[in-house]
């Protein structure tokens, strides 16, 4: 089955059609997807500002990271589950949409960026944390995250206008 064929099949499952046809379920899921932005992306952006030296530069970055990640996990759980359901209801339209494809590409880049931070830069945090300023690598990760997530929001909002 082609990818587009799979999208069409997904869209016509009884689960997907029940949601698209429901008067209140679709707005509720879409609203949850948008209102989970502050708890997921927003929390990460706060930490990006810390890495870039634009906020909270007085405290330990490692402690702020732990605090922020703990809460953003709930946000991303809502984000990815509601996003998955929204995709199911409009899979074939999303498949052909340039903004949706860009959004997915950005999410992959952001995933790699987060993995690099966790595996390479996180273990070295204690070394620079006491001195305050983040090294170039960490700042770069923060900048990629900041720009990438803003791009995801723009693509997400714009794609819905083209459906």
């Amino acid at each position, binding site marked *: 089955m082609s990818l587009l064929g799979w999208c069409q099949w997904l869209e016509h499952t009884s689960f997907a059609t029940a949601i698209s046809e429901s008067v209140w379920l679709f*707005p509720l899921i*879409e*609203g949850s997807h*948008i*209102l989970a*932005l*502050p*708890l997921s*992306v*927003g*929390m990460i*952006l*706060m930490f990006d*500002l810390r890495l870039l030296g634009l*906020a*909270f530069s*007085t*405290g*330990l970055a490692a*402690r*702020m990271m732990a*605090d922020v990640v*703990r*809460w953003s996990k709930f946000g991303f759980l809502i984000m990815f589950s509601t996003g998955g359901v929204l995709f199911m209801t409009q899979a074939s339209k999303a498949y052909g949409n340039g903004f949706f494809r860009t959004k997915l590409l950005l999410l992959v880049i952001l995933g790699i960026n987060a993995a690099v931070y966790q595996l390479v830069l996180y273990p070295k945090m204690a070394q620079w944390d006491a001195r305050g300023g983040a090294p170039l690598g960490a700042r770069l990760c923060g900048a990629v995250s900041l720009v990438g997530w*803003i791009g995801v*929001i*723009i693509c997400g*909002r*714009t794609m819905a*206008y083209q459906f």
Partner: protein
Amino acid sequence: MTTSIRSFLDWCSNTETIIYIRDSSYGMPAVQSVHLIGLTVLLAAMLVLNLRLAAVSMMDWSLPAVERQLRPWALGALTLVIASGMLMFVGNPPKYLANAAFLFKMAALGLAVVCQFGVLRRFFLSDPGGRARPLNIAVAVLSLTLWFSVGWAGRAIAFV
């Protein structure tokens, strides 16, 4: 008074920029993207601040320090959501003024701003240390409920 406001809004709605934003294929998505980026930063700042007030997050920072660090970002984001919101509103004032969700949103926004930056401000400026006082938790819950109802009411504008 009312007539002059109405004619001012009419004039706004008919300026080239506003017509472009309303009717072009990328005008509204661009303005709404800015609105959502502002919402994300503003409500994240409110989450961090109120979670600290309830003593469940950011315990390495004092509450006044968290408030001081977040203030410029919260106020900047508030400016962004209000400015982008006004661009949407002036595109079609009668449509919004007749929308119950919009009116509720404006009332909730006013109340949230007055609570957060006004009457409840002393809670955010005083330092409760590491203790979670019941009153502080109640203020945090009230404040976050207000901010998120503004968001939900905004989403509802398109559906009512």
